[in-house]
């Protein structure tokens, strides 16, 4: 199999844009990725579009709007992993030699629901009994706090770190830093979470161009190599399972490290799926950035802050950058590419050479999560 590269990136600042259509949210991200790559848009041979609530033919609607029609377009719904799944499909097509240049797009407009918790599939049993995403993550947090040392202040520390990073990111939805006291004093959502420990509702779009070695070589050394592109789905487990171990991410991380031929010690920067404060901590352990039960210590000691041993979510993560769910995976990859190119400005992780992005989600009965996509990138 040949190697795939990211040759162009673009995104629009995340936020609340109820007046914009999905098409108007998305096309500027696509155009920015094309401009960034410097390639002729006619060279794009295929497109994968990730969205959960964008509606029928989202990719065709967006691309038709800017003259990119007549190519194969595949629309992908995989909840919070929709556009990271799209990226995986693009990488797979390029590695297989099927296409030389493939566009990846992620877009979501959550303000169309008018706020509140993410609407889940009502056909699902647990959802019919009152399940919602804050409750699912809150039960993980409660159990983790029961089983391991983790204080409410440490949990709040995730939000403090990510809001601090988000304040440095012009594309982030939440740009005000917050204190531990403010986080703990914000209104309760699902115990132990307060509002500032939950990702905000918002809109946004992000895009990437994935290309073959042949195309990347013509563009000089700005291309970022894809070392691993892993997609997995949850294992249906209707009986007992340990909610403090995100099994889908543990498995995905193992697969991704194996594919890249490296381990957690070699990751210089990571964007992980911090939909709620506890999630980021569980993923420190799932990715092997620390041992079982050590995540609280890791956040307390600043090991995952910019400048720490392994900076996590320098973009602000889902908690600060925002989480328009179908756009999230693509936006995480955009951040890692910026970091590896040294173009992350005030939030630049010094001499980052290898970076990881991780998007997982989907609250359905019997699964830890429905889908999980992990990518590992390297500076060429």
């Amino acid at each position, binding site marked *: 199999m040949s190697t795939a590269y990211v040759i162009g990136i673009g995104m629009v600042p995340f936020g609340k844009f109820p007046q914009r259509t999905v098409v108007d949210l998305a096309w500027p991200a696509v155009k920015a990725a094309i401009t960034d790559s410097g390639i002729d848009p006619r060279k794009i041979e295929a497109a994968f579009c990730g969205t959960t609530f964008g509606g029928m033919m989202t990719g065709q609607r967006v691309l038709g709007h800017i003259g990119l029609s007549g190519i194969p377009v595949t629309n992908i719904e995989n909840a919070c992993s929709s556009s990271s799944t799209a990226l995986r499909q693009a990488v797979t097509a390029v590695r297989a030699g099927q296409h030389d240049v493939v566009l990846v797009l992620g877009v979501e407009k959550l303000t169309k629901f008018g706020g509140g918790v993410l609407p889940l599939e009502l056909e699902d049993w647990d959802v019919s009994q009152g399940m919602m995403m804050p409750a699912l993550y809150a039960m993980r947090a409660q159990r983790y706090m029961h089983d391991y040392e983790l204080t409410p202040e440490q949990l709040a520390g995730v939000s403090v770190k990510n809001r601090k990073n988000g304040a440095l990111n012009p594309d982030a939805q939440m740009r005000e830093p917050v204190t531990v006291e403010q986080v703990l004093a914000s*209104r309760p959502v*699902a115990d132990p979470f307060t509002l500032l420990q939950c990702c905000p509702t918002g809109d946004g779009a992000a895009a990437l161009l994935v290309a073959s070695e042949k195309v990347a070589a013509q563009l000089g050394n700005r291309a970022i190599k894809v070392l691993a592109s892993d997609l997995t789905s949850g294992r249906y487990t209707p009986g007992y399972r340990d909610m403090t171990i995100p099994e889908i991410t543990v498995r995905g991380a193992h697969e991704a490290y194996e594919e890249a031929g490296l381990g957690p010690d070699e990751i210089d920067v990571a964007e992980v799926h911090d939909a709620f404060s506890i999630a980021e901590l569980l993923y420190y352990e799932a990715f092997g950035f620390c041992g079982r039960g050590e995540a609280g210590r890791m956040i307390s000691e600043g090991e995952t802050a910019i400048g720490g041993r392994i900076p996590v979510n320098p973009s602000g993560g889902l908690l600060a950058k925002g989480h328009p769910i179908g756009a999230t995976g693509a936006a995480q990859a955009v951040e890692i590419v910026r970091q590896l190119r040294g173009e992350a400005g005030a939030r630049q992780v010094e001499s980052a050479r290898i970076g990881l992005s991780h998007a997982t989600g989907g609250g359905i009965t019997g699964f830890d999560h429905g889908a999980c996509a992990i990518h590992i990138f390297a500076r060429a």
Partner: protein
Amino acid sequence: MNSPPQTRSMWLPGGAASVDAQGRPVLVGGECRACHTRMFPKTTVCCACMSEDVADAPLPSEGTLYSFTQVHVGPAQWNKPLVVGYVDLPDGVRLFSHLRNSAALAIGGPVHLTLGQVGTSAEGEAITTFMFAAGEQPQ
């Protein structure tokens, strides 16, 4: 078995819960006759082996609370705050359930099956379903 009082069938599809002659709630799951996997709710096809030979299996009415949370947000039909959690039954089934709010709820603690109103539908109808409460089943 009778239908629980005031229960909207959409919350308890497929006869997953009912009440016995003493008016006490009973949960009915399924057991695959081919591979003996137990499940709740009962489905028409086994999630482990695809067999369609799934028998009714009344579930234990006491279990252990694996985790729970008090939720202050969410769809309008639920009473707020609502308390929900995962209950581990001794036969290997874990189920997600409403819980009766109480300071006695604790991770690892015993819970027992009961009925209760958990919300009100858009049409103003009481939503009553099975739930678990702290402590062992009163005799």
